[in-house]
């Protein structure tokens, strides 16, 4: 589904990503782990088009993503959750979710309030809102939400954007253990529906609970990859984490 081929990215002489190749298979949950500064978020930024690679290419379903804009990559079906909250603070939960749903109505339709699929869109948003078990009323401003509730809204937004691949940058960082369990359950349910997920996480128990494959990075390079039970025993991985 996604093929990253010999990709490199330098920031003022520092090799953030150094000649990495990654293959993401359809219908699987892949975890990208590694110590801080190992290049994980840079990989996600490269895939989603936030930054462009210096070398190498990224192929997603026969499309070379290297020259494409962020929005074109999103419209090809790559939906991304940011590490830091990037919700639209002055909008309600519902409006934040509404923006993620595709809507091709014209300016005139918008002026006249004609939205032929408004009910369909509302139903779609309601389904994901209920699935995420968001406690707050969906008319509430997101700036008034707790960190955990904000994270749920952001994940709901990422799921609502029509997609084939989900990129999640630390989906459970800073949330309570209860929420962590709920998010793990949701991601496993999505996998059962055939979804493909690539996520970054520092929480090892969460990672081991849901990942089919793990890729480990250190200092911009991939140092190990494989099934979770094998990767956690890998010498290089233990060295990277424990020194």
């Amino acid at each position: 589904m996604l093929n990253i081929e010999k990709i490199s990215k330098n920031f003022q002489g520092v090799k953030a990503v150094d000649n990495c190749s990654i293959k993401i298979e359809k219908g699987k949950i892949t975890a990208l782990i590694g110590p801080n500064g190992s290049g994980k978020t840079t990989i996600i930024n490269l895939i989603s088009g936030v930054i462009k690679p210096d070398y190498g290419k990224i192929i997603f379903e026969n499309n070379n993503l290297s020259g494409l804009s962020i929005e074109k990559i999103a419209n090809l079906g790559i939906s991304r959750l940011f590490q830091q909250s990037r919700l639209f603070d002055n909008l309600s939960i519902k409006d934040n979710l509404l923006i993620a749903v595709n809507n091709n109505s014209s300016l005139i339709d918008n002026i006249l309030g004609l939205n032929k699929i408004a009910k369909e869109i509302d139903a779609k948003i309601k389904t994901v809102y209920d699935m995420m078990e968001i406690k707050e009323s969906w008319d509430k401003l997101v700036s008034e939400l707790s960190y955990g509730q904000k994270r749920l809204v952001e994940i709901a937004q990422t799921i609502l954007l029509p997609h084939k691949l989900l990129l999640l940058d630390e989906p459970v960082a800073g949330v309570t253990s209860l929420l962590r369990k709920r998010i793990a359950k949701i991601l496993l349910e999505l996998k059962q529906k055939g979804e493909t997920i690539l996520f970054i996480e520092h929480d090892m128990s969460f990672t081991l609970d849901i990942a089919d494959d793990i890729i480990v990075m250190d200092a911009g390079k991939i140092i190990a990859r494989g099934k979770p039970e094998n990767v956690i025993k890998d010498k290089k991985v233990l060295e990277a984490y424990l020194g």
Partner: protein
Amino acid sequence: MIDAYFIHLLILICIYVILAISLQLSLGFTGLLNLAHVAFFAIGAYATALLALSGYPFWLCILFAGVLAALFGYVLSIPTNKLKGDYLALATLGFSFVIYAIVLNWISLTNGPMGLPGIPRPTFLGINFSNNNNFFMLSIFVTVIIYFVIYSITKSPLGKVMEAIRDDELAARSLGKNTKKIKSISMATSAFFAGIAGSLFAYYITFIDPTSFSFSNLIPILSIVIIGGLASLPGTVFATIIIILLPEPLRFIGFPSSVIGPARQLIYAMLLLIILYYKPKGFYGKVNLE
């Protein structure tokens, strides 16, 4: 006499409401620090004046004023699309100065500093608007329609995407939104209504010259938007009434006109400072000024 004076103020309020709520669309809702609004106002006024003086009907003049201003708004949005904040403010301010220089110096078209006198008051559907009472009815009708069009846009999915761009453009792009296109639509729509306000202004005053479209004329419009509160349409209407009426008592104190002008600017500046200090979101705003 007093009636005529109040009707005059009400017509001015209508024109400024159109100007301010259309600026809200680009500045308050989309977050574009657009200082070209006074230029779109000028384009609308001059387009109307030139067409009306050539005998074209009211509906064509007002529509053409809007479309021409929208076209300029769209064209301006293309090179400025990547600019944000202060840089966008500078680029759009530059555009205002260019338009001002054109109306001042293209004498064969605009008559330069002498202006264009004798713009005929409109006649539409058999009604003659040379009477100020009738003109007020026309102004309020146009204002109400424009208010509801802008209100509908801001409540629609397109309006929500505009607000998303204001809050976080990168996040909006990551959700597949073509933010360049939406910013251009916002700028052009905002300019369209500023052009219509210019058209009403030219028809009402019946004489236009470049002094009505200098940068200082942008200050009251910006003040209204900030005092009313970013992204608040009712707040904008409320602030327009205050801004238009507040300097009026100066006329009755008996100050010479050379004092009234600067005193008016002083009042706007004081009001802005007080509002920014005590109510940084404006009266009804929901968005912080950054």
